[in-house]
């Protein structure tokens, strides 16, 4: 029994076999945005440390965050933050056992994509 068919079992089709669907794309984006946000955390913590250190160092960190590259990273971070927040709320809703049928799940998927873009625009306009 111990050595029956070891390592020679049929495999189930993996990610690259399936056609991308809205539900799978929104799911993997949740993981990418959540883990990618560490870049924004590192920048913000560095900025705070620079502010606590003194005006000269603050000017360096503030300059990086306000450069075109810093602004691009922050723009991405704002979208990632809103996307991950909305996707997280969707997860809490899913965890309660609701919204799991395909039409609702797809509507929620479009909702978090549209909502995250809308909130990003709103954040840029406000600040």
């Amino acid at each position, binding site marked *: 029994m111990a050595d029956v068919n070891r390592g020679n079992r049929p495999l189930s089709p993996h990610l690259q076999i399936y056609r991308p669907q809205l539900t799978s794309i929104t799911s993997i984006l949740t993981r990418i945005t959540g883990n990618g946000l560490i870049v924004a955390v590192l920048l913000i913590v560095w900025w705070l440390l620079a502010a606590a250190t003194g005006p000269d160092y603050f000017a360096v960190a503030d300059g990086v965050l306000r450069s075109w590259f810093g602004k691009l990273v922050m723009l991405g971070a704002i979208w990632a933050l809103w996307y991950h927040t909305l996707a997280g709320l969707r997860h*809490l809703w899913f965890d309660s056992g609701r919204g799991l049928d395909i039409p609702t799940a797809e509507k929620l998927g479009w909702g978090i994509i549209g909502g995250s873009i809308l909130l990003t625009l709103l954040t840029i306009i406000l600040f």
Partner: protein
Amino acid sequence: MAYLTDRKRADGLGSSKTGTEHFWHMKVSSVALAVLIPLFVFTFGRILGAPYPEVLAYFARPFPAIITGLTLVVGLVHFKNGAQVMIEDYAQGSTRKALIIGVTCLSYACMATGLFALIRLAL
């Protein structure tokens, strides 16, 4: 290989029995962040781009300092647990262990640095 027993072969491949607790911790921190993130965006967005003396005065106030500190601590605990799940999905063996240790160190280092900076700004 031929001397391995069935028991030995199955050892360590089952559930670690801490998954429910991990899931619950993710859930608690996500509910906290659902409140904290909008507050953080509004407090941090208001001060980013301001001159140095204003930044100093801003983080000396309780509300911005507490919101920023809370968001950093809860956010990084949430990151530590979430990144661990990702690592466990894609990496095996020693790589997995090294990455989990690395992510844990990075999370607590960010937390400590951010809190140190905030305390220094606030006091």
